[in-house]
C-alpha cells in the first residue's frame, strides 16, 4: 500500500549490478570450510540438533557468492569419500549375518546425513552445479556410496553372495529376514537400476538357474508327472511372491523364465511322455486338475502347448482308430456311435475345463475326429443307424429335449464325415423303414433332424427326405378321401386298407416285385387304384408287396383265437390255408409268386421261430425243399392275444448289400461330378486340367471327396458328348462348347 501522506517524495529506483561485500580475508575460505567441515562431522555423529541451519546455509551461500564453489564442491567430495572409507571399514568388519545389517544401518545413516548436507549446500546446487554440469550434491553422494562401498572389491562379491545365499536358504524352507532383504535390494535400486541388475539380479538369476536345474533333475527321477508339475507350480508361485516381497517387480519376468526353462522347457518331452503318469494317462483318467496345471505351466514354454496338442492328437487318433476298427465294435452300430460321442464329450470337457477352451485345441480335436471317423467307411451307415435308433425310441422314452441334445451331438460327428452323400443314402433307407413300419418319431422330431441336415448341407441334400415325410401326410389324406367317397355298402365286407403312396425318386430304389395278393385284398386294392387314378391324371400306381404289414384274425384247430401282425408276404401265405389244409413249398410258391429268397425267409419265420410257430413244417429242418409240406399248427398257443411275427431280417446291411449300396452311391456321384464340371466350364469357358480338378473337388467336398480318376473319366465322357473339347494347341486345356 502506498503512503500518500506526508511530504515524502517517491524515489526512482535504478538497476545496477549487485555489489556484494567481497571478502578480502585470505583465510576466508579456510575459515568457512572449517565451520562447514566441523558441522558435517557433527552430522555424521548424529549431533545435528546442536547445529544452526541458518548459520551453515549462510556460510555456504557466502562461499558460492565469493566464487569458491569449485573448492567447496571438491572439499565436499573429499569429505564424503573419507567418511565412506570409514563406513566401509566398519561394514567389512561385520561377520556373517551382521554384514547386511551393518550395511543397512550405515546406508540409513548416510542417507540422513546426505540429505542434511544437501540442504546446507542448496544454493550451490541451484547455481554453480547446473552451470558447470556437475552432479547434484545428493546424486553425487549416492554415486560415491556406490563406488566406495557397494562396488568395492571387498564388498561387491560378498554382498551378492550373501543375498543369493539367503534366498537359497529361503528356498530350502528356512525363514530369513525379509525386511532386511527388502531394504538391501531397495538400496541397490536407489543406487541405479544398473547397480541392481549387475550387482544382484544377474548373479541371482545364474544361481537360480543352477538351483532349479539340480532340483528338477532330482524331482523328475522320483516324482510322477502330476506331482512334478505341482512342485514346479509351487516354485513359480514362490518366486513371484519373493519378487513382490523384496525384489524389483521387473525381476519377476526374468526369474519366471528361469524356472520355466529349467523345470519345464528342459524336461518337456520327458514330462509329457512320462510312463504311467504323463499326458496320455491324464487324458485317459480325466485328471482335470493335472491337465489344467500342465496347460497353464506349458503356456510359458515356447512350443509347450504345441507339444501337448500334438500328443493329445496322436492319442485321440490311436484311441479312435482302435474304436472304429475293432471287429467287436462293428457288431453294434448304436454302441459304436455312442462311444464316439462319449469320447467327443470327454475331450470337449477336458478342453473346456482344463485347456481354457483354447481354439487351437478345439481345432486339433476336430481334426483328430475327422481323421478317426473317416477311417471306417461304414461310419456314415452307423451314424444313420444311431439316429434311427434314437428316433424310434423317442416315443417310448418320451424325452424330446434329450433327443434334441443327442441329435445336436450326432450332427457334430456328421460334420466330420467326408462321404455325406453316403450318409444321405443310408438315412433315406432308414427313414423309409421308420415311416413305412409306423416306427417314425413324431413328425416334429423327424423334421427337426432334417432341419439340422439342411442347415449343414443345404436344401438339395434334404429335399427328397422331406418329400418322404410329405408323401406320408398326403397318403393319409388320400386314404381318408378314398373311404369318404366310396359307398360304405361296397366296402362292407372288405378288409380295411391303408395305402402309402411313395413318390418315385424320393424313396430308396426298390425292385418292383408284385406277388399274387389274396382275392379279398385284390378287390379292395383295385377299388383304391380306380379312385386314385380317377383323381390324379397321368399317374401310374404300382404295388410294392415286399413292404407293408397286415393284421389277421386267426382261429386255430384247438379253438384258440389270436390276432396276428405279419408282413404282406406272410399274409399272402397264411391266407392260402383258408382253403387248403396242407400245401407243399412248390404249391405255395406257385400260388403267391413271392420271390424265392423272400418266400423262404417268410416261411421260416412262420414255421420255425419258437413261440411264433403258427405253421408246422414237414420235415422239421432248417432248409426248405420243394416237396416240404406246410399246414396250420392246430396246437398253437400264446399268452398274448396279439402276436407279432417279424420277418427274419437283419437291420445292418450284409456285405453284398453293403457293396451294392456303395456302388449305387458311386453311380450317383457321376452325374454330380459332371454337373459340377459343366457349371465350372460354363462360367470359365476355357480352363486347364488341374484347375478343373481343383474346382470340382472344392465344389463337391461338402458332400463327398471326389475321386480324381472318376473326374478324369467324366471329363472324357463330356468330351465324347460334345459338352467340352480339347484345345487344339494345348492338350491340357479344355473349352466349353455352348
Amino acid at each position, binding site marked *: 500500500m*502506498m503512503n500518500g501522506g506526508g511530504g515524502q517524495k517517491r524515489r526512482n*529506483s535504478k538497476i545496477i549490478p549487485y555489489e556484494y561485500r567481497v571478502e578480502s580475508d585470505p583465510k576466508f575460505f579456510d575459515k568457512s570450510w572449517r565451520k562447514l567441515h566441523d558441522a558435517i562431522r557433527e552430522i555424521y555423529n548424529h549431533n545435528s540438533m546442536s547445529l544452526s541451519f541458518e548459520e551453515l546455509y549462510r556460510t555456504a551461500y557466502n562461499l558460492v557468492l565469493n566464487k569458491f564453489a569449485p573448492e567447496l564442491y571438491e572439499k565436499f567430495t573429499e569429505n564424503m569419500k573419507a567418511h565412506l572409507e570409514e563406513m566401509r571399514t566398519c561394514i567389512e568388519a561385520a561377520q556373517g549375518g551382521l554384514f547386511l545389517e551393518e550395511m543397512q544401518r550405515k546406508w540409513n545413516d548416510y542417507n540422513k546425513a546426505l540429505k542434511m548436507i544437501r540442504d546446507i549446500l542448496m*544454493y550451490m546446487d541451484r547455481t554453480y552445479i547446473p552451470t558447470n554440469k556437475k552432479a547434484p550434491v545428493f546424486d553425487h553422494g549416492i554415486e560415491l556410496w556406490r563406488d566406495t562401498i557397494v562396488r568395492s572389491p571387498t564388498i561387491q562379491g560378498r554382498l551378492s553372495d550373501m543375498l543369493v545365499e539367503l534366498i537359497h536358504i529361503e528356498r530350502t524352507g528356512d525363514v530369513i529376514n525379509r525386511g532386511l532383504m527388502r531394504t538391501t535390494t531397495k538400496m541397490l535400486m536407489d543406487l541405479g537400476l544398473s547397480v541392481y541388475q549387475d550387482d544382484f539380479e544377474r548373479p541371482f538369476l545364474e544361481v537360480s538357474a543352477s538351483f532349479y536345474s539340480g532340483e528338477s533333475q532330482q524331482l523328475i527321477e522320483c516324482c510322477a508327472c502330476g506331482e512334478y508339475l505341482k512342485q514346479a507350480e509351487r516354485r513359480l508361485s514362490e518366486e513371484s511372491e519373493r519378487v513382490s516381497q523384496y525384489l524389483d517387480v521387473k525381476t519377476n519376468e526374468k526369474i519366471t523364465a528361469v524356472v520355466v526353462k529349467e523345470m519345464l522347457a528342459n524336461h518337456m518331452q520327458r514330462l509329457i511322455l512320462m510312463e504311467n503318469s504323463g499326458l496320455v494317462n491324464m487324458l485317459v483318467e480325466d485328471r482335470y486338475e493335472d491337465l489344467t496345471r500342465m496347460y497353464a505351466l506349458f503356456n510359458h514354454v515356447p512350443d509347450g502347448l504345441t507339444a501337448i496338442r500334438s500328443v493329445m492328437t496322436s492319442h485321440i487318433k490311436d484311441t479312435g482308430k482302435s474304436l472304429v476298427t475293432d471287429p467287436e465294435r462293428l457288431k453294434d452300430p448304436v454302441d459304436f456311435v455312442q462311444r464316439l460321442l462319449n469320447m467327443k464329450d470327454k475331450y470337449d470337457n477336458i478342453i473346456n475345463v482344463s485347456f481354457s477352451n483354447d481354439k487351437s485345441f478345439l481345432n486339433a480335436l476336430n481334426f483328430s475326429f475327422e481323421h478317426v471317423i473317416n477311417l471306417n467307411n461304414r461310419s456314415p451307415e452307423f451314424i444313420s443307424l444311431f439316429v434311427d435308433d434314437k428316433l424310434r425310441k423317442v416315443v417310448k422314452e418320451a424325452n424330446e429335449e434329450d433327443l434334441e441334445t443327442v441329435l445336436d451331438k450326432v450332427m457334430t460327428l456328421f460334420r466330420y464325415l467326408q462321404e455325406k452323400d453316403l450318409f444321405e443314402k443310408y438315412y433315406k433307407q432308414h427313414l423309409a423303414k421308420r415311416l413305412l413300419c409306423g416306427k417314425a418319431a413324431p413328425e416334429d422330431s423327424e423334421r427337426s433332424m432334417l432341419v439340422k441336415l439342411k442347415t449343414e448341407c443345404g436344401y438339395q441334400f434334404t429335399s427328397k427326405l422331406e418329400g418322404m415325410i410329405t408323401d406320408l401326410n398326403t397318403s393319409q389324406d388320400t386314404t381318408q378321401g378314398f373311404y369318404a367317397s366310396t359307398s360304405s355298402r361296397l366296402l362292407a365286407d372288405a378288409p380295411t386298407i391303408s395305402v402309402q403312396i411313395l413318390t418315385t425318386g424320393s424313396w430308396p430304389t426298390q425292385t418292383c416285385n408284385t406277388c399274387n395278393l389274396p382275392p379279398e385284398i385284390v378287390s379292395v386294392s383295385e377299388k383304391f387304384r380306380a379312385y386314385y387314378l380317377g383323381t390324379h391324371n397321368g399317374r401310374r400306381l404300382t404295388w410294392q408287396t415286399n413292404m407293408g404289414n397286415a393284421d389277421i384274425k386267426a382261429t386255430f384247430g384247438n379253438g384258440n383265437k389270436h390276432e396276428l401282425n405279419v408282413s404282406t408276404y406272410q399274409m399272402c401265405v397264411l391266407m392260402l390255408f383258408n382253403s387248403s389244409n396242407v400245401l407243399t413249398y412248390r404249391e405255395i410258391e406257385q400260388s403267391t409268386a413271392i420271390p424265392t429268397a423272400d418266400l423262404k425267409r417268410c416261411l421260416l419265420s412262420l414255421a420255425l421261430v419258437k413261440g411264433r410257430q403258427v405253421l408246422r413244417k414237414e420235415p422239421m429242418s432248417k432248409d426248405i425243399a420243394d416237396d416240404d409240406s406246410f399246414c396250420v399248427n392246430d396246437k398253437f398257443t400264446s399268452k398274448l392275444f396279439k402276436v407279432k411275427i417279424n420277418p427274419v431280417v437283419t437291420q445292418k446291411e450284409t456285405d453284398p448289400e453293403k457293396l451294392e449300396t456303395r456302388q449305387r452311391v458311386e453311380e450317383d456321384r457321376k452325374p454330380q461330378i459332371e454337373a459340377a464340371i459343366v457349371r465350372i466350364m460354363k462360367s470359365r469357358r476355357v480352363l486347364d486340367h488341374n484347375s478343373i480338378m481343383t474346382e470340382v473337388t472344392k465344389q463337391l467336398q461338402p458332400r463327398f471327396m471326389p475321386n480324381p480318376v472318376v473326374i478324369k473319366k467324366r471329363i472324357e465322357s463330356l468330351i465324347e458328348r460334345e459338352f467340352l473339347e480339347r484345345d487344339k494347341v494345348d492338350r491340357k486345356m479344355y473349352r466349353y462348347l455352348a
Partner: protein
Amino acid sequence: MIIQCDLTVVRDPELCKTKGGFEIQVPPSDLAEQFGKLLLEEEETDVVFSVGGETFPAHKVVLAARSPVFKAQLYGNMKEAKARRVAVEDMQPGVFRALLKFIYIYTDALPVIGDDNICDDDYDEIIRHLLVAAACR
C-alpha cells in the same frame, strides 16, 4: 387391381428443454489478502525470527511451502526445527520484512519498497537480489 397405401407420419419427439441454466458466480480469489491478514495480525504463529534487533512472528508451514530453504531449516534435523526463536544474521530488518511480505502475499511481481525507511539506492539493489535468492524455488 387394388393398391393399398399405408402412410405413417413420424413426428419428432418433443423434448422439454431446460431453461438456460444460470451460472454460478465464483468470486475472485482473495488468497493473498487472507494470507496478508494472517501475517499482519500475527495469528497462530509458531516461529519468531530475530533479525537485527527486531522480531518477526511467522508460520512455519507457509514459509516451508514457499521456500525450500525455509523448509529445510524449519522441518529439518537441526536446532531451528525445534526452536521457536530463530536468529537471522547478516540481514537488515527491513529486508527480512520485505521477504516475509513477498512470501505471504505476492505470487508474481516484486514488491514496491517505497514506504520502508530505507534511503540508500544501494539497499534497493541488495533487497532485490536477496529476495530473488532467498525466495527462489
